[in-house]
């Protein structure tokens, strides 16, 4: 009797284990959504860690516009935000030579070189004064249809619904077909769709820098 009970118990247990283990095995398949979610989270964390580590690279530098100069600090504007830089340890340079802080003019441009100590601490090592004005020129970037086109000027109706724009063509204007290869002004015609990049000159006229056709030339 005792043997029968043991045998029955063993059979029940083995059958139970066989069934449940087969179900559990299915959970391990590659396309299991839970596993995929876990992998996704791990990947995101890896990216996070990667970008965090890169922001902690030792040396950084940025371009800034001088707003205010004092004996102890330099206030600069970076994309509309103002930074106050203490000048205690920073060396001020121009053209490879050290200069005094009073040589920095308001509205001039500087490169601020800093060493990253940790996530919250940076040490300004060097401030380089540039003679170049980095203020972006006023420019137009638009796509539209050529309304009129002459040898030296054209007008375009932007797709964005803005008013017709008049622009000039100069010797430095680059004309391209739709693949970016050089084209001639004679290949462009009215109603052709184009991408145009133009800069304002000193007189407020827009001079075309690049004009690229957005379709093949049909005329």
């Amino acid at each position, binding site marked *: 009797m005792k043997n029968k009970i043991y045998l029955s118990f063993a059979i029940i247990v083995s059958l139970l284990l066989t069934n449940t283990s087969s179900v559990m095995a299915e959970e391990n398949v590659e396309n299991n959504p839970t596993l995929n979610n876990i992998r996704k989270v791990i990947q995101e964390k890896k990216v996070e860690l990667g970008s965090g580590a890169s922001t902690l690279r030792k040396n*950084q530098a940025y371009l800034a516009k001088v707003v205010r100069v004092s004996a102890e600090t330099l206030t600069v504007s970076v994309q509309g935000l103002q930074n106050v830089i203490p000048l205690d340890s920073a060396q001020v340079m121009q053209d490879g030579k050290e200069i005094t802080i009073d040589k920095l003019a308001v509205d001039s441009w500087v490169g601020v070189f800093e060493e990253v100590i940790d996530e919250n601490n940076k040490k300004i090592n060097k401030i380089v004064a540039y003679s170049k004005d980095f203020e972006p020129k006023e420019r137009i*970037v638009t796509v539209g249809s050529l309304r009129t086109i002459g040898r030296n000027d054209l007008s375009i109706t932007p797709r964005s*619904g803005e008013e017709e724009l008049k622009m000039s063509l100069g010797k430095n204007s680059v004309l391209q077909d739709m693949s970016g290869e050089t084209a001639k002004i004679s290949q462009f015609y009215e109603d052709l769709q184009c*991408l145009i990049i133009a800069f304002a000159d000193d007189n407020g006229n827009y001079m075309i820098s*690049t004009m690229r056709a957005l379709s093949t030339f049909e005329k």
Partner: protein
Amino acid sequence: MRKEILLAIFVGMSLGLMITFGIYQGRQNSTTKQNTDSNRAIINPVSSDSATLQKNTAELVVNSPEPNLLSKEEEIIVSGMSNPNNFIIIFVNDQEYITNADEAGNFSSKVTLEEGGNLLNVTSLDEDGRKVEKQLSVIYEK
């Protein structure tokens, strides 16, 4: 003896099937919940970096170069993500580079830096003329 064995097999199979059914039901419920969650995420997209760039809103993410880059290389790669097939115009100071975002919205272009300060402007322009811009600076020192 034989009767007991048959009974044990029957009881074992019944119990096993019941447990299997229970586990199966549990898995079904969790899968349904996950699908509902992902549908909700598509309907209400979150504004994470490479997430969902909607067709009707101009989007632009610049992955490279990193902010405040001090480059020792004259040439760098400007890359990122925008709306699929948008025109991407990269200005390095006043020098422009034109490229296109691919079907997935990714773009990448090699640009040449000027020695010293470089103000980078990345403009993404869609076929209807809508645009979005990002600006960053890179300093190139030999």
